[in-house]
């Protein structure tokens, strides 16, 4: 379970996130969409404990990130928008490192299995500088999933992936949720969100604009066609629709 209560993050007097609350149940995938500068990355960073919120609470699997940070982090995996890897560690080293960090008892066997699953077996001894952007992204996701997180947060997970890898990534996200994890996916790729996510939260200027399933969102926006896609709904909801 991922829960955010009245999250506020202020930078130099500017409210990047303004009183956001949300809840993602186990097995559920929430899509977080919003225009550039809406505060999505800031929200996800607060959620992952990278930056402290100005106020509000973040709970991961019932553990408050402020009061029980270790318990919360142990159950969380965060995939940032840029694949941050250690340039002196090989693919296998990364998985070894994450096994120890999260105390994955079957780390070596699981790492081998994940390498095969991610299509990185041939790159097990490659350094990040020898990997393509897509491969790096796969490695970051592999590291994130190694400890079977109860909460998974992905920021733009499909950037740099080829169509086959995109399909595999979507399947992985779905499988992780089906295994009982709460998942948040932030992306500008609205088709991905529409396809993978159970619910969508449209976010603008640090505030929630709309939230619900696609059907629920359609009902909340007046004068919208019954089969309108997420792109249309997003543009209407954020006031960015400039079609005549």
């Amino acid at each position, binding site marked *: 379970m991922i829960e955010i209560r009245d999250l506020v993050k202020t930078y130099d007097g500017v409210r*990047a996130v303004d009183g956001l609350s949300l809840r993602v149940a186990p097995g559920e995938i929430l899509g977080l969409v919003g225009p550039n500068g809406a505060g999505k990355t800031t929200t996800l960073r607060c959620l992952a404990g*990278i930056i402290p919120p100005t106020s509000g609470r973040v709970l991961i699997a019932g553990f408050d990130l402020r009061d029980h940070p270790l318990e919360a982090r142990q159950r969380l995996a965060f995939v940032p928008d840029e694949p941050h890897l*250690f340039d002196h560690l090989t693919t296998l080293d990364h998985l070894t*490192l994450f096994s*120890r960090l999260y105390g994955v008892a079957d780390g070596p066997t699981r790492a081998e299995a994940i390498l095969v699953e991610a299509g990185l077996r041939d790159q097990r001894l490659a*350094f990040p*500088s020898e990997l393509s952007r897509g491969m790096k992204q796969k490695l970051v996701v592999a590291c994130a999933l190694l400890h079977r997180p109860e909460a998974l947060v992905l920021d733009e997970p499909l950037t740099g992936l080829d169509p086959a890898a995109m399909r595999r990534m979507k399947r992985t996200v779905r499988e992780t949720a089906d295994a009982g994890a709460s998942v948040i996916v932030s992306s500008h790729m609205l088709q991905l969100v529409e396809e993978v996510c159970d619910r969508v939260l449209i976010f603008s200027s*640090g505030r929630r604009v709309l939230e619900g399933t696609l059907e629920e969102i359609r009902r909340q926006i007046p004068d919208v066609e019954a089969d309108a896609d997420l792109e249309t709904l997003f543009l209407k909801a954020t006031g960015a629709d400039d079609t005549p």
Partner: protein
Amino acid sequence: MSTLLHLIWRSLRGRILGWLRLMRRPKYFVGTLAGVVWMSLFALRPILGVARRNPADARLGEIITWLPAMETGAALLLLVGVSLWWIWPFGQATIALTETELHVLMPAPIRRRHIIQYALLRSQPGILFGCLMVSFLSVGGAPASVAWRFLSMWLFLTLWNLHARGRGLWVARLRELPTSSAWRRRAVMLAAVGLLWAMSAPGIASVAAALQPLDGDVAAHLRAVLAPDGLREQAPTLALLLAPARWIIGPFFAGLEPSATLATRLITLVWPVLLLGLHHEWVVRSQTQFEEASLARSRRQTASGDAGARFRAMKQSRRLSAPFRLRPTGPTEMAIVWKNLMRAHRTSLRLTVVAGAAAIGLAATVVSVTGLPDWLIGIMMIGGGVGLAMTPLMAGHQWRNDLRTDLLRIEVIRTWPIAGWRLFAAEVCPPACIATLYAGAAGGALLIAGVAAGRPTATGSVLVRPELATTLGVPYVALLLLGLATLLPLVAAIATLSATLQNLLALLWPSWIQLGLRRTGSAAHIGQGLLTGLGLAAAMAVGLLPGAVLVGGSLFVQIQMAEIPLVGWELPVLGVLAIMPLVCIIGLLIRFGGVLWDQLDPSAEVLGASGAP
């Protein structure tokens, strides 16, 4: 050109505003203030009268008598250097532009000469900063002399920079020309340089011949021969050929000459300024295609800053090795130690220690039989002693495989399930560990030298008097080993303290510390170095003085009160006792580091998200 000037101005303004924004935080303001005060003290030495009391001024008087000879030597060096440079066949059009600038400026409707001028202007901050630093930090002179030194150095370096660009463009132009034309130009250049050398050689030979029969005051004769009048008399052609080079360096030497009036000094500027103008026109009017070379250069620079390049060259078999085997379960911090040690080296720690100890032991055994020459013993003692003392002090400065590098991956490490102080301790450990290993090697050299010096046949310096071993009831070699065992915990503690302080600074002033492997030398960074040095000195004083009192107290109780004599085997125990207060201080600092880590908001200072969601 106004657009480009605007671009330069906006970049500069952005930097200044960013710096001012940082100064709004008191912690950055104090650090910068410390750096500025320190540099100002240097800059204002002449006004404060420090320079006049400096004994270096007495030496300056002696140096002045050498100025004409030094000017001739420098001119000859310049002539030979530049002529050799021109016959060197390699080079490229190095108009320094970044990849972004190339991609933005090249397609834009901007005149080519303006782009070159823009690139030349961009190299000026580096030259100006270098001149400023050297002018201020070099010893001696009134404020006017410092200003003149700055001006003359700037003139020379700018001229040199323009000449390098021009020569690079000339070589690149040869590649664009048809082969026959290029070879013709090369031949003309070779002939010109050959002619220059042919004309200079008799003069150089004549000066050398004049110096050969010397048997009295060599220095005075050398001064006389190399002085302009002497040279004109001895080798008039050489004196004539050296004249242009002498004019180029003239302003610098005019500044050193105390009797030179302002008018004399200003006259020396005429030729360099004229050359500067000519060089500028030569470079900006060049039609050589520099774009490809500039692009290649900027990509090379990016690649050199890319640490990944070093690892890409690693053999496959090597990639499987590690400092130690990391099991999937156990203390989390060991994972961070393992990771950071690997940044420095993948060699097994156990193998390093065992092989190093074996090598030192073997060498000590061999020298105990064969001995070593006294000069080598002396060198090993000095080198080993300096290494043992300095390596731990410099640990935090020398090795940066800690939080300073990991802060660049904060989006990864911040999510790890580990308590702040334990993460901080793990980050501090690798540089301290590496420094201790190096210090251990230096100690090994000291041990080998001590073994050689302790041989009955040795005549040179002695590390430990053999009588001391007898007094302490242990064999001589055992005493040396015990001494090393006593020092190593102290070395490890100081290395840890040094690394701890550097990492604390990284958490206190993340925008100030150069994250990653890069270092710069701005006022703020000098201030940072000053604060680290002060912190290290204070922490050592606070930590080691109680340690010394503890050791003294325990020895007093043992020897004076209990009347139990000191034996050599106690030394390592006393060493551990001596570092206990220091270890407590390190522990407290690590706890403080953990608090800082837990409270760190990296949004503005590391992730650069100030004001922007």
